């Protein structure tokens, strides 16, 4: 931002206004500039910015100072931006809003859109370079390609030129990739439509589908990432793949479950399994769909969903009554317990201890005391002493 100079914002005789855009906020490199939102004006010679509320606050920079610029796509809660890389300020530059800056680029943030057209016009002006043929009456210091200029080419300008070349190359690769991607997507869309047609036919019972064919169909959906339109199940659950996975998990999780008192939160399982795999990781849905098959495969594990929505994998041998009576015993022993205290006692996570206490409460063995100090459980004396 130290390349800008204070300006009256008036155009010269030979200068024309090309485009202006409201709602532009300036950035000094990555930092927001100490200026409010304003209007960005592009002329044939300069880039001008004026504060919307305080019209006297107006700054400008000659277009010749621009090395190159690029778009920065909008993100969540972030406006689209144009990043403009600049030459160093010449020694005789007039004063401006910033004395110095550690950045050699600025950003224009388009809070009210308009970046596409602005970008297009900026591209035009910088390729036509109209300021060279119609110099302004006041000589604006520019980076000249004089003898000294050429030796600078090896230095900063040279590096910046290399960056631009690399960026152009990347851009080319990306646009080629996008083209190929679009063609691919057209084919993928055909598959989606075909699968919908098949699903409709299955629903309307047009044609006899064997169980084999149904399984095959589901695996096709899984491969393509298409949700099963008939059952609305997520993406072909119940396939051979999930069967295999369930068996693997049945083996792999026995020891960790024992270590953790017979129960693990599904997110914990997810991390454990994927960290162990290193590659060809499971998606969250893969894990859920595999766990759903534990029961039908008669494996000693179960997927369980608590009322709170928490999903856990628990050992079949882990009896519910045991959990509840242990909770009741511990609470009676200590008079009362919070989830945190219980967790410490058992060496379990707070989440799972809380679920146990809630379960015991649901069965009528415990009462709660809900206050700002936390949730505390007491033995249900109404029950035991009634």
């Amino acid at each position: 931002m130290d390349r800008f100079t204070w300006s009256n914002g008036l155009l010269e005789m030979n200068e024309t206004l090309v485009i202006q855009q409201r709602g532009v906020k300036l950035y000094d490199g990555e930092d927001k500039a100490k200026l409010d939102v304003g209007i960005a004006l592009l002329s044939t010679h300069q880039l001008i910015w004026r504060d919307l509320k305080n019209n006297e606050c107006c700054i400008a920079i000659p277009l010749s100072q621009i090395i190159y610029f690029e778009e920065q796509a909008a993100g969540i809660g972030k406006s689209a931006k144009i990043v403009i890389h600049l030459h160093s300020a010449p020694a005789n530059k007039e004063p401006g809003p910033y004395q110095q800056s550690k950045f050699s680029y600025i950003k224009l943030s388009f809070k009210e859109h308009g970046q596409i057209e602005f970008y297009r016009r900026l591209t035009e002006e910088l390729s036509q370079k109209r300021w060279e043929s119609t110099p302004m009456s006041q000589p604006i210091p520019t980076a000249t390609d004089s003898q000294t200029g050429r030796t600078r080419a090896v230095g900063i300008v040279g590096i910046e030129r290399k960056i631009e070349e690399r960026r152009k190359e990347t851009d080319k690769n990306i646009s080629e990739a996008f083209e190929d991607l679009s063609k691919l997507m057209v084919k993928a869309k055909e598959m989606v439509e075909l699968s919908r047609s098949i699903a409709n036919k299955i629903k309307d019972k047009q044609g006899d589908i064997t169980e084999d064919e149904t399984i095959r169909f589901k695996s096709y959906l899984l491969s393509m990432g298409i949700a099963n339109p008939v059952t609305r199940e997520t993406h072909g659950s119940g396939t051979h793949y999930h069967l295999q996975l369930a068996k693997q998990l049945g083996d792999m999780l026995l020891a960790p479950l024992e270590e953790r008192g017979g129960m693990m939160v599904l997110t914990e399982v997810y991390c454990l399994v994927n960290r162990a795999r290193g590659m060809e990781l499971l998606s969250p849905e893969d894990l859920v769909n595999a766990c759903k098959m534990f029961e039908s495969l008669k494996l000693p594990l179960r997927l369980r969903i608590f009322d709170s929505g928490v999903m856990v994998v628990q050992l079949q041998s882990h009896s519910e009554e045991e959990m509840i009576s242990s909770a009741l015993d511990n609470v009676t022993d200590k008079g009362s317990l919070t989830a945190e205290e219980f967790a410490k006692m058992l060496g379990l996570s707070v989440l799972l201890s809380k679920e146990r206490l809630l379960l015991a409460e649901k069965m009528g063995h415990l009462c709660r005391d809900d206050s700002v100090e936390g949730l505390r459980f007491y033995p249900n004396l109404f029950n035991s002493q009634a």
Partner: protein
Amino acid sequence: MHRRGVGAGAIAKKKLAEAKYKERGTVLAEDQIVQMSKQLETFKSNLEEFASKHKQEIRKSSQFRVQFQEMCATIGVDPLASGKGFWSEMLGVGDFYYELGVQIIEVCLALKHRNGGLITLDELHHRVLKGRGKFAQDVSQDDLVRAIKKLKAMGNGFGMIPVGSSYLVQSVPAELNMDHTVVLQLAEKKGYVSVSEIRESLKWERERACHVLEDLLKEGLAWLDSQASGEPQYWLPALFSELTSRDVTPEEANQMTP
């Protein structure tokens, strides 16, 4: 269980069905499944070709990933549904996002004792990047959001709450309704909020404001500062780092000290 019948009677029945359908010009489902199988093979090889040329783009460019995801969504395809999907296997999209999911879970778990299970997207982004190390691929906030959306399948209350110009990421099954969300948004500017502020900005009755604040306290999402001058302040640790890590220039510092 459906079984194609065998025997003369079944053959005749099938012929009749086929004739009927041919008459109406419709194709049988089982024929379409065969057709789909063939198309799938073709698609798979197209995807392989694409991957051999452009697999790098997915890894290197977050912009490309965004476009890719949006295109998939438009045609009704979820490339992240399964690790066994073509997209995942051949383009490696799956591993990228599933691993990110692991990292997100771990960061949230590590900080839960402090912020109750609520963290700003910025802080999450910052910490995930740190955890990945200098040589790992770049990860954008869009990448995080997509990974989080997938994590929802595992219960446990992963969610995103819009706040200010960004989001708060929730990683515990606390039930946060509109009232809670609106108070969180109000607290975003300063990192804390008071009962009178809520009443002034939102025009709520005292009871409603107190109830929401109590809920937040109970869930461990807010801390009570009863020693604040004036009335008690309810601070949100999830919003702390926004304030404490902001860079201050020497001029600003001079202006701030009274």
